[in-house]
């Protein structure tokens, strides 16, 4: 019994080892040239491991020749890969930061390459700007700077609008906001008919927003209050812009339309009325009402004729000799209807 058990175990293990061996990579094979060199004694197998030189490395480079001069060439300065490198608090925006701020039209409404806001503050602020955009047609682009940082003269909001937003045709708002110093904020309303908004109104708007921001002590709360106030005040600016757009459209139409535009308007009104689909039932009802009206008018206006068969003359009268019952009130205790019974009793 034990013999048979050992045999079976041996067969199973042998089959398992064979199957595992079939999955292994094939063993290296000597080529004919190496076999010849080994047989002739030109090459000893494993000599690299047994000597001090060690095994040969593939990336070994030849050492430079002694006395050769090494020349290090200067390369052009590359912008730092770190986009969010923060500048000094009182520095002027320069170098690569100008590119980060004003290189292209911003993808969002918040431009903060220095990451002056924390991640949570940025999320909250972006949400506030998005909420403003849901209710308003006047986007606010907020550029954030530190409290004492300066923007070069060539990058004031108007010039930035002319270069970055030059393809924009609708009114927009650009705000340079200095964290912790809302009174330094710079504001630009530009595009479309926004240039007709009175300057005093723009200044008042900025002053109100800065005043609202100063009510808070925390810098982020200041920023939040500033933009919130700005958003509310911009509602009235939008109203002014809408009125101006309507006026400009009216004036344009008046200029284009010829003097006899009333006739054209009347024709347009008829055309638009003809395009309206009226249900068939309305035609039937209106036709019926019209027919009833015509019949009513005819009925009221019709002339009524008596047949020409007059009675013979009586009592010497040429025109007539007949009268109805006399309506009188002879007896106060008797109703007038009772008097009908008295007819014919006293003619004259």
């Amino acid at each position: 019994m034990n013999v048979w058990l050992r045999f079976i175990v041996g067969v199973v293990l042998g089959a398992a080892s064979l199957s595992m061996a079939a999955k292994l990579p094939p063993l290296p094979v000597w080529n004919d040239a190496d076999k010849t060199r080994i047989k002739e004694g030109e090459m000893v197998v494993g000599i690299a491991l047994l000597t001090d030189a060690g095994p040969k490395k593939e990336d070994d480079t030849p050492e430079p020749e002694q006395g050769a001069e090494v020349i290090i060439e200067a390369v052009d300065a590359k912008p730092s890969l770190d986009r969010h490198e923060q500048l000094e608090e009182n520095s002027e925006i320069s170098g690569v930061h100008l590119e980060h701020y004003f290189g292209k039209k911003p993808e969002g409404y918040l431009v903060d390459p220095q990451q002056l806001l924390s991640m949570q503050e940025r999320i909250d602020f972006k949400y506030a700007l998005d909420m403003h955009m849901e209710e308003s047609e006047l986007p606010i682009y907020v550029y954030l700077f530190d409290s004492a940082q300066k923007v070069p003269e060539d990058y004031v909001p108007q010039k930035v609008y002319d270069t970055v937003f030059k393809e924009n045709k609708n009114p927009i708002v650009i705000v340079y906001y200095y964290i912790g110093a809302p009174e330094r904020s710079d504001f630009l309303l530009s595009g479309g008919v926004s240039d007709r908004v009175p300057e005093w109104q723009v200044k008042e708007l900025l002053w109100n927003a800065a005043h609202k921001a100063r009510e808070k002590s925390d810098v982020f709360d200041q920023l939040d209050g500033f933009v919130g106030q700005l958003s509310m005040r911009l509602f009235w600016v939008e109203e002014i812009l809408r009125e101006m757009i309507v006026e400009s459209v009216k004036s344009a139409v008046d200029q284009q339309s010829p003097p006899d535009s009333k006739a054209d308007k009347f024709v347009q009104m008829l055309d638009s009325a003809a395009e309206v689909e009226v249900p068939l039932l309305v035609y039937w009802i209106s036709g019926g009402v019209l027919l009833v009206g015509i019949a009513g008018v005819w009925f009221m206006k019709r002339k009524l004729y008596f047949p020409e068969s007059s009675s013979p003359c009586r009592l010497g009268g040429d025109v007539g000799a007949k009268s109805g019952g006399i309506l009188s009130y002879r007896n106060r205790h008797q109703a007038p209807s009772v008097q009908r019974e008295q007819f014919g009793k006293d003619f004259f």
Partner: protein
Amino acid sequence: MHLSAEECPHCGLVLAQLDSVYAGFDRTVRRPHDAAGVLRVPDRKKVSKWIARAERAFPQLYFCVVTCSLRDDQNVRSYGFWLMNRGEFQDIPESASKEGCVMLVIDVNRKEVCLHVGYLLDAAMNEEGAFDALTGGHPYLLESNFMQSIEVMLGGVRKYVKRLRRKARRLAK
């Protein structure tokens, strides 16, 4: 009374006898003929308009409203009969027949009213129908609200004349 009687079978009355009774009365009949002087100028205009409308609807007829103040020996029925036959009606439409008179006579003294018609409407008319046409205005008449009374009675007269026309057309067939 026979339709072709020359005189009243009861009293022998003829039109000529009434000339002496109403000798002092004006024979010129204006429309409205306000001999009693109870209608104001706006009221007269209203009655004139009603008369014009009625004469447009009944081209053969001419209408008249008469107010009078009769003595005790006079009577609204005899006065109406006399005035209809002896009166000189003014501004009668050209299309109107001489026998197409419809005259409403009101005695403001005794608060009595009587409707007189010409021979054109004679055949279809009866006393009860004419009486019923006027009863609506009686309460106003008792209150001496003559204009209101006339307005109500004229409405009844118009309806009654329409009924007379229908009846006359039936009788003519």
